[in-house]
């Protein structure tokens, strides 16, 4: 699903990381079970989740209302 999201917007990048080859990353992100997903190093979850929930998490970090940003909200 993460890779499918990159089809829609050039601001979206998605990496699939094989943790056994990169144990340092597994330690850095406290990966204890897979699949584990991390978004902008802020949001994380384990296992598969429904598409609408995944989208909600992406929009949390990826969308800023231009008007709210202008008004400093």
């Amino acid at each position, binding site marked *: 699903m993460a890779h499918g999201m990159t089809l829609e917007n050039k601001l979206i*990048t998605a990496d699939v990381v094989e943790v056994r080859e990169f144990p340092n990353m597994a330690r850095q992100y406290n990966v204890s079970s897979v699949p584990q997903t991390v978004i902008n190093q802020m949001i994380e979850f384990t296992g598969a989740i429904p598409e609408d929930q995944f989208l909600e998490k992406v929009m949390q970090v990826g969308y800023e209302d231009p008007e709210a940003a202008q008004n400093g909200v």
Partner: protein
Amino acid sequence: MNLISQQNRADLKRRFRKELKRDVTLKFFTTTTSSALVLPGRECPTCPQAQELLEVTTGLSPKLHLETYDYFSDIEERDRCGVERIPAIVLETERGGIMKYYGVPAGYEFALLVQDIITLSRKVSPLMVPTRRSLRTVNRPVHIQVFVTPD
């Protein structure tokens, strides 16, 4: 090393022939330094395995192309694609989004790679229309990392 069995190669070849429409380029970032001259900090023990897997896979269809880059000398392309370690495989989408694989794409990762290749070639998103519409409004960089194991 036989990373894909003859039977799986035949199956995949059939699947690619049936499902691929447009050409797809896979960018492979590795170290091209001779194995006799590996410098400390530049080792990549799994790069040859990843390369073999990609050569076999892209050899199964004339619509698949493999471009190989040296992580340590092709710096411009590496940085443009945001590659931070090797082995890495990059697929670029039409809108400029980037899909990356770090590590040998075996098992689960290989199945994902095949699916991504087909998705890019057919330009058919696996996502629902409302999801796609929302994603087009994203106005800040989003970096998704999915940690997996091969099995």
